[in-house]
């Protein structure tokens, strides 16, 4: 379970998260939606301790990680997997090495076993025959799928997905959503997914939270969010230009 309590984060005086409260329930998929540039990735980075709040608390399984030292934080991070917006693949490693890396560093499995699992993970995300390619030889969508394979491989208890399907074609996009859903059903991890894919995101999530101007405007089941009367939520879901969300 992840709980953010009164989290404020500002960069050079600009407030990005403003006394934000969010509860991510255990074993559920929580989607965070909201306009671009409103701090969704910043929110995600707080959950795994990559950023520390200016004030407030980030509680993971009952422990406040916002004041933890490096070694304590690493202990908590053992529970996490994360897919970054830009995939964050190691550019000096091949695809195979990228996916195998956390397993090589954190397990004592044999090379053959690691190789088998890496190939399975790559097949799962629809990537075959790219093992020896380097990240700069891949398209943006392929990079993202490699990142996804890397995030899923160690079966973490909590997985953070930062826009897992942005930039992918509709078929791959659906396949990735299905993969997240299937993996979740199989392993029961807690997931936080940042996405702009509306309405597709409603199909895979148990709860949806809308972030706007540094605050969570509304949280609920996908059905509740779709029925929401909040003008900003309605505008975002319908993609209307008119409304409280300014796009300039």
């Amino acid at each position, binding site marked *: 379970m992840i709980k953010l309590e009164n989290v404020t984060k500002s960069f050079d005086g600009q407030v990005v998260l403003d006394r934000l409260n969010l509860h991510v329930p255990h074993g559920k998929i929580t989607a965070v939606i909201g306009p671009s540039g409103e701090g969704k990735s910043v929110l995600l*980075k707080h959950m795994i301790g*990559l950023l520390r709040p200016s004030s407030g608390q980030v509680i993971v399984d009952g422990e406040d990680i916002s004041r933890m030292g490096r070694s304590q934080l690493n202990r908590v*991070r053992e529970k996490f997997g994360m897919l970054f917006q830009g995939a964050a693949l190691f*550019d000096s490693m091949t695809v195979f090495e990228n996916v195998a890396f*956390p397993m090589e560093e954190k397990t004592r499995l044999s090379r053959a076993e690691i190789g088998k699992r890496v190939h399975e993970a790559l097949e799962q995300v629809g990537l075959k025959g790219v093992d020896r390619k380097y990240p700069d030889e891949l398209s943006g969508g392929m990079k993202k799928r490699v990142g996804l394979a890397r995030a899923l491989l160690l079966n973490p208890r909590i997985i953070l997905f930062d826009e897992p399907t942005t930039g992918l074609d509709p078929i791959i996009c659906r396949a990735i959503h299905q993969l997240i859903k299937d993996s979740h059903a199989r392993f029961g991890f807690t997931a936080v997914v940042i996405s702009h894919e509306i309405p597709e995101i409603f199909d895979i999530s148990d709860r949806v939270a809308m972030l706007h101007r540094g605050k969570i405007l509304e949280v609920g089941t996908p059905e509740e969010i779709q029925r929401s009367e909040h003008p900003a939520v309605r505008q975002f879901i319908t993609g209307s230009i008119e409304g409280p969300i300014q796009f300039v």
Partner: protein
Amino acid sequence: MPVIAQKLGALTLSLLREMGRMLNFILYALYMIVRSPCKPFHTLKQLHFIGAKSFFVIFLTASFTGMVLGLQGYYTLAKFGSEGLLGSAVALSLIRELGPVLSALMVTGRAGSAITAEIGIMRISEQIDALQTMALEPFKYLVSPKVLASLLVLPLLCAIFDVVGIYGGYLVGVKLLGVNPGAYYNEMVKSVEWKDIFSGIVKSLSFGLIISWVCCYKGYHAGHGAEGVSRATTAAVVMSSVLILIWDYFLTSVLL
């Protein structure tokens, strides 16, 4: 006046903060070397990159530095009729001063800038964040192997620089200008003492620390985008070079 004082105060505070951060950075990198030994592969890779790949540039710089010293030394010593002391002049200049300083400056330009750029790009493309999310310590993979490799490699490169430079001086002094080869060699052996070699080793060790420290730090804290990395790289090279020269003066005054 109060405005100027305020600005000066703010500048001093930010400078002190930066120095504190830098100190923390290197202490943690050294702690990581001791506490959790660097992966042999990562360290070997850095030894190859910082050391073996710098060999050619060190060889070239040392040859010409030694040759210039041979020429200049001969010109000066000939005025006093002491050409025979050329070997000792060349050797002492190289071992005590030019070997450590020039090899360090060459490594800064060749490897230091690359270290900053590499770590900087990893920072801006979230690769360092990715390591952290895997509960892996980035210092163990990115910083400590480079610091360790620099500490090991700089004294060796400096030794190579000294030997090649002395031979360069020999070529010019003996083969070109006709200095007696026996005098060149004997005067050098007579005048070079253990403490001269020791001072060269201490200097190159500390320069190795400075290069890896500054270059890793600047890369690790690179700003945004390509411009941030380019700015970090420039700052790393300039700061390392200046620190090497300043630290050289202090060390020389202590070790003289």
